[in-house]
């Protein structure tokens, strides 16, 4: 699914998300980088219509009416709401809403079992650890297999092994289903490993948007240059 944003304005905290034009390519993985408060999450939530925009237009495959495309978009929020039921029930909830029968649901779940050790599936989801909760939230949106997947720091609470498996899962979803994936991350290396395109945001604006290789080897914006240099030193 292609996303085209035009004249987007959204006031948040003390800043204004202000995006003149932005085209998120269909079938690609796009990483959004930026410092805290730069508008990454607000942008993602505006795309998912969780936050109402103050001005501007967002087109989903050329369609502006969100109601017509809402069932083609899934978002994993930074602090996902996990329901007071088993982890498995949380994961299959969306599939039940879509009217899938038990056999199809089981078949769908099986596809995702190779990525994680899911021995917590029958535990109450509210009693899970941070990493397990993140896996439930991610699987809950992944199993829906919608054309647009928006992920807000999906690996923030995961250990290294789970992070790598999550990245494999994201790549596989993108390859197998041609899903457009937009991922907000603070991890430069994750963006390097996962993304086809990288967006860098600062104070509510997109200050760099380019192919991954170009972004890391030849950034145009001075702030991005500084940011990459600093992370090279820290490495």
């Amino acid at each position, binding site marked *: 699914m292609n996303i085209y944003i035009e004249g987007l304005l959204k006031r948040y905290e003390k800043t204004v998300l202000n995006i003149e034009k932005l085209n998120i390519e269909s079938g690609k993985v796009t990483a959004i980088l930026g410092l805290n408060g730069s508008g990454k999450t607000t942008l993602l939530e505006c795309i*998912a219509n*969780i936050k109402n925009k103050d001005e501007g237009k967002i087109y989903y495959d050329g369609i502006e009416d969100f109601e017509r495309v*809402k*069932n083609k*978009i*899934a*978002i994993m929020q930074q*602090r*996902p*709401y*996990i*329901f*007071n*039921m088993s982890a498995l029930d949380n994961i299959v*909830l*969306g599939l039940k*809403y*879509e009217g899938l029968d038990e056999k199809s649901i089981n078949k769908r779940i099986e596809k995702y079992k190779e990525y994680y050790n899911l021995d917590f599936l029958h535990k*109450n989801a*509210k*009693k*899970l*650890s*941070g990493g397990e*909760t993140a896996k439930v939230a991610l699987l*809950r*949106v992944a199993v*829906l297999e919608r054309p647009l997947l928006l992920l807000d720091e999906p690996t923030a*609470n995961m250990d290294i092994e789970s992070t790598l498996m999550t990245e494999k899962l994201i790549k596989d979803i993108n390859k197998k289903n041609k899903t457009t994936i937009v991922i907000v991350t603070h991890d430069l290396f994750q963006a390097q490993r996962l993304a086809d395109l990288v967006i860098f945001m600062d104070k509510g604006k997109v200050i760099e948007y380019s192919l991954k290789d170009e972004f890391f080897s030849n950034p145009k914006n001075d702030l991005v240059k500084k940011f990459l240099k600093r992370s090279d030193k820290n490495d």
Partner: protein
Amino acid sequence: MEILKIVITSLYVSLTATFIASFFALVFGMFFLTKQFKLKDLFIKLFDSFTAMPPVLMGLLVFLLLSKNGPLGKYNLLFTPFAMILAQTLLVFPIIFTLMVKQIDKNALRIQKTCYMLGGRYKDFLTLILKECKNEIMTAVTSGFSRAISEVGAVMMVGGNIKGYTRVMTTFIALETSKGNFKGAVLVGVILLCISFIVNAILYNLKGREPNEYLY
């Protein structure tokens, strides 16, 4: 026998009033929790201030409403259990409503957005919020019932404390105390206390154990 009748009347009036008030609190609560409109905060503050309404004042309002010259006077409802139920319903509705809205408000929008994002409809959202906020709802209902069963001013005014008809535990205690029959008053007082404990224990058990929510 008289005491049994008093206990039954008390439970009938207070449980019915709590049930009706809870039903309307839930319906209005869902509307307030899921819709954003200009005067929302003002309405919630208004209902909040009604929680402190003195029962005798509510009794007076219902009395005026149902008395011979009042708008509903022709139905002869004054000094009946109906009048007592009406007074208690109006008294406990703001308590249940504001407690419910305040407690659920922090999660309602998140539940709604998550449910709709997953493809759920309004009925799915209602099912989810009732399950997710069962504890908060039961807490509000329990508070409403506690207020109803222990209330004396309003039921005395609109019920009339008629023996065998509208006499409830609280009005019986007030009457027997004024007559100097402390033995009867204390006995019914103990029964009232036990019933309050039992009903609250049942409602508490209905809430179930709350799992430790993991926040990050």
